[in-house]
């Protein structure tokens, strides 16, 4: 059966979230299993950290404003960490 389109979309956005938090917010690279479960502790904390840094409402959730921010063009230097 062909994959359900929406499901596939969700997958790529989770990849984007994973990459974004790894690249800019020090999410450990081995946190993959956490990202799959959106509400897991480490990921929620990182999302909140990102939302706070970027001036978004801190919800810990991947709401549309947050997802929109992650699609915006930006500088490649991380926002936190060394």
């Amino acid at each position, binding site marked *: 059966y062909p994959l359900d389109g929406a499901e596939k979309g969700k997958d790529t956005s989770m990849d984007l979230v994973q990459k974004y938090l790894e690249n800019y917010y020090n999410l450990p690279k081995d946190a993959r299993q956490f990202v799959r479960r959106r509400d897991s502790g480490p990921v929620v904390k990182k999302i909140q950290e990102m939302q706070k*840094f970027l001036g978004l409402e801190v919800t810990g959730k991947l709401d549309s404003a947050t997802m929109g921010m992650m699609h915006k*063009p930006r*500088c*490649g230097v991380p926002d936190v960490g*060394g």
Partner: protein
Amino acid sequence: FSTFPGMPKWKKTHLTYRIVNYTPDLPRDAVDSAIEKALKIWEEVTPLTFSKIHEGEADIMISFAVREHGDFSPFDGPGQVLAHAYPPGQGIYGDAHFDDDEQWTKDSAGTNLFLVAAHELGHSLGLFHSTNTEALMYPLYKSFTDLAQFRLAQDDVDGIQSLYGPPPASPDNPIVPTESVPSGSETPATCDPTLSFDAVSTLRGEVLFFKNRHFWRKSLRTPEPEFHLISSFWPSLPSNLDAACEVTSRDTVFLFKGNQFWAIRGNEVLAGYPRGIHTLGFSPTVKKIDAAISDKEKKKTYFFVEDKYWRFDEKRQAMEPGFPKKIAEDFPGVEPKVDAVFEAFGFFYFFRGSSQLEFDPNAKKVTHTLKSNSWFNC
């Protein structure tokens, strides 16, 4: 604003830059003027000046590249990452790379090169990203910026001037004195023969010499020590410490000031501190610690207070009975008081004023007398 950990910055005010290659999106002179304009906005608020060179290694090497381009941070095609840059330093440090999969423009139709260059050169000069959405150093690209009216936000100016200070006085912009700097924060001279230390400790194989608001960081790999503000690594730590020691088995350095102590691991201040020193078992009469050292073989930590010393058993996490004892009793030649102490090559190095005593703990005798700053390659 924030700066990179350790506050790396250029040690000179005149910097060179080189545009290694050019994007096909714009005429060469448009690229030249965009970079020139981007440097100028930082020049106007600092003592820094820039000059362009056309070959060889410049402080700031500017280049356009796509995907993987040799620095393990590949670009990602059109959109998303536009550019990146490295903090001040040798080699790749200080350099700025621009993603040539973007459509670089002189106006705001595509990605404006001046705007992105001004941001990346902020990194090249030592600024990290800012959470201030109005700042140039905010990490996201703002395509709606009015380029004709562009100017640095106060946050950007505060940031860059925290690294380099304001521009030199000139008739049309006399420097207005800022509020007086609290005493004790003058920058101590590394090779001053009268130099003394507040505290000295090892940290993962390096040695940290604390003095007022600063510390020297001495690695065996480099003859010259680095010199930093304590707050640039550990913002919540106080200045003018009393003592410091590393407990290697816990990868932790403990720092003491007055009746409190803090714990750090690398550049992280551990949660749950400061704590009172009396939780370690000192008698209430002890108001502060003069010096501390932890012996990793014996798993004992020695605390020097006035003319006495205490010994703490790291295994039992308790002060040992029978203390305090006179320093003279077990460390002959070191009494009456010490400022700081650390261990290297099997010797304890005690500091008192501008003198340093090398003490052999096995022979229980002073083997050398040195200047306090003998480690600084003066």
